[in-house]
């Protein structure tokens, strides 16, 4: 009986220890995270960007591949392309329908990659996650580069006040997969396949 109790206590301590190694990071929403898309069509290249990005990630830096979980949330209504009229079209029901679906999300479910997150070292991997745009969710695989950095006083200049993760990813999506139908009139101005670029800074929660 005593041995069984000791075994259970040890198991609980080990699992608690494992959980304690997981760190929580919040996406830096004050201009240090950017999400953009590039539509490279025959007549025009359109780049839309937003820095209204939020979300959080939990990760154990020693075994990032098996422990990472989180979500990146983008305010769909805040994408800007530099032309007001085009931005209004982008927000409209034909494209992002930002009024009905104000958020675009990317949920990270699994990472395929090797190695630990050592401060200053970049790790490459593939994220398996769910991308939701205009209320349509699709499971996708995204090549990603992630790096973990320790806080230094110089980072105050960037409004960063904790250890941080830098996450970068670029991947193409077909807009039709997410319920965006490009009108044939605009076919040569808007591409059917759009490149999404994530440039995320996530700061450790205190």
């Amino acid at each position, binding site marked *: 009986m005593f041995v069984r109790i000791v075994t259970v206590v040890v198991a609980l301590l080990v699992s608690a220890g494992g959980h304690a190694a997981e760190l929580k990071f919040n996406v830096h929403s004050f201009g240090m995270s950017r999400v953009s898309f590039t539509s490279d069509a025959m007549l025009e290249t359109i780049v839309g960007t937003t820095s209204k990005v939020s979300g959080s990630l939990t990760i154990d830096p020693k075994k990032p591949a098996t422990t990472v979980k989180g979500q990146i949330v983008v305010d769909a209504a805040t994408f*800007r392309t530099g032309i007001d009229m085009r931005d209004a079209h982008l927000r409209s029901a034909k494209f992002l329908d930002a009024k009905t679906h104000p958020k675009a999300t990317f949920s990270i479910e699994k990472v395929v990659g090797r190695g630990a997150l050592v401060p200053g070292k970049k790790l490459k991997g593939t994220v398996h996650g769910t991308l939701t745009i205009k209320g349509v969710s699709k499971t996708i695989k995204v090549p990603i580069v992630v790096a973990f950095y320790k806080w230094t006083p110089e980072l105050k200049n960037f409004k960063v006040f904790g250890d941080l993760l830098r996450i970068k990813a670029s991947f193409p999506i077909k807009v039709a997969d997410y319920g965006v139908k490009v009108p044939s009139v605009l076919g040569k101005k808007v591409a059917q396949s759009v490149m999404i670029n994530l440039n995320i800074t996530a700061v450790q929660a205190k």
Partner: protein
Amino acid sequence: MEWLKKNAKWLVLVLLLLGVLVGVTIYYKMFRRDPVWVEQQRNEKKKLDDLDRLLDKQGDPNAK
């Protein structure tokens, strides 16, 4: 008809001016990117590049 022949020169000039006006309006509304936005994008990109440069020093053993 007589009036048209007499004022054709002015009519062409007015139509040309109208064309230029419509062209400039279309350009400004549909093709010209807001210079404030362009500058803002440049600054945001520069700030992120500066952050990466600073962080890269952590990964560089030769950096001071």
